[in-house]
């Protein structure tokens, strides 16, 4: 526990970092996932293996990388390999323990949209960046962590486009589709943590962030949010976590970039 103030973003980052067990191989995107992974590596998980889709295996950056292809990743990696190799030899066979995903929209089964919003595919209201590595991260990592701020615009009843599959239309769908990873095990948000119901695979609020309420969470979900009977409050960031996190953030000057 901390005596310091902290932001909801900091709470999300710390919650994500805590989800990374020492020694795991972690497929990291830029932004919050990279910050969380580097925080974990500096706190409870010194042997966390950081893998970036640019082809760096076991990067050990001494500052936060500014992009997934930052030179500090290549300089500090155990091995730098090609992009085809990272996807084919490392991601696809299920060698990577944990993958991070975010997106513009998520549904109750942890499916994600990073492609288009509104209108139709050829002429959308908002054109998002697209798939990138996400569909195969969602399919092949042993576990996936989704990190997104909650709002009824992003936690939606129905996705405008399925870019990456969580549990499809519910329990058993991953097996039916032949997806080999376990799927998303958490959605880490600014209000709390959601976990899939073991029976239905529907994401259910299982933990609140300090200061957040169930009502806020319900309002920020575009579907009737299920809430666990037992709803503990997450531990606030510790002093150590906050200090290390802020030191890390201070290593980048002009914003994170993918």
């Amino acid at each position: 526990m901390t005596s310091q103030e902290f932001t909801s973003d900091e709470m999300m980052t710390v919650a994500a970092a805590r989800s990374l067990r020492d020694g795991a191989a972690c497929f990291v995107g830029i932004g919050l996932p990279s910050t969380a992974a580097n925080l974990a590596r500096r706190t409870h998980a010194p042997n966390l293996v950081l893998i970036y889709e640019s082809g760096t295996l076991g990067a050990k950056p001494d500052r936060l990388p500014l992009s997934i292809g930052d030179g500090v990743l290549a300089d500090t990696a155990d091995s730098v390999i090609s992009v085809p190799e990272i996807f084919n030899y490392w991601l696809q066979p299920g060698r990577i323990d944990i993958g991070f995903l975010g997106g513009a929209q998520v549904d109750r089964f942890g499916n994600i949209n990073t492609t288009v919003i509104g209108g139709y595919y050829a002429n959308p209201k908002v054109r998002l960046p697209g798939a990138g590595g996400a569909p195969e991260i969602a399919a092949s990592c042993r576990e996936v962590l989704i990190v997104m701020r909650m709002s009824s615009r992003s936690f939606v009843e129905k996705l405008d486009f399925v870019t990456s599959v969580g549990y499809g239309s519910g329990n058993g769908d991953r097996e039916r589709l032949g997806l080999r990873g376990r799927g998303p095990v958490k959605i880490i948000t600014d209000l709390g943590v959601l976990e899939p119901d073991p029976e239905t695979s529907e994401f259910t609020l299982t933990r609140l962030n300090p200061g957040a309420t169930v009502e806020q969470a319900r309002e920020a979900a575009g579907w009737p949010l299920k809430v666990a009977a037992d709803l503990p409050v997450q531990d606030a960031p510790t002093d150590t976590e906050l200090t290390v996190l802020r030191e890390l953030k201070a290593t980048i000057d002009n914003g994170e970039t993918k």
Partner: protein
Amino acid sequence: MARILQLDEAIAKLVNDGDTVALEGFTHLIPVAAGHEIIRQGRRDLTLVRMTPDIVYDQMIGAGCARKLVFSWGGNPGVGSLHRFRDAIQNGWPVPLEIEEHSHAGMANRYAAGAAGLPFAVLRGYVGTDLPEHTGTIKPIECPFTGETLAAVPAVNPDVGIIHAQQADRQGNVQMWGITGVQKETVLASARSLVTVEEVVDELTPRPGAVVLPRWAVTAVAEVPGGARPSYAQGYYERDNSYYQQWDPISRDREKFEQWLASEIRTTERSAR
């Protein structure tokens, strides 16, 4: 056998209207100067291929070079959308833009199949997503041994593949290091290839992690110091992160973009970036 040419000469010889052209570089070593030269020479109707179209493709699309984009992630990394790209898709400005959209794994495998002289690649991908519904170049394929269904994607074989590397020697052998992405595959998959380099040296010194392309696998080499800016060239210069942020307001506004084109590309012999 690689010829060492000036950049303008190389683009004039290698890139024709209507060609399929891939400029690759994964965050690192993006061949930006070559893209600017394509704009300067007024190429039209290109099919542009790139896993991660970012600023340089936004510029080429805004300048009207492209009729189609084949990609897997399009954005201004860390900043937001590519507004010229969106304007072309949504409003057909300055010309309509068709898109063919894949995932990174799919695109990487398309290049690898192209480099390997195969008509298609097989991967565990796209399953359960909406991509196959909109992208004709994703089809199911059955394993003849297990009966399992996987995804097939066709090879990419650009007419011209363009990359940036740190060094070439005087014979045209190329060496790049650091993050080298899908650049080797791009050159090998393409009918013709251009490698812009930071410098031409007498002899390449072997380096840990370096990728070497022998001269007989490359069509042309052009010495273009700073040719990857605003991206970076490991060992030469850092990424110019502020450029990516400064691009956003220019990209958002057709008039500002036209001014940028006029002052930075069309009236210069070589762009400052």
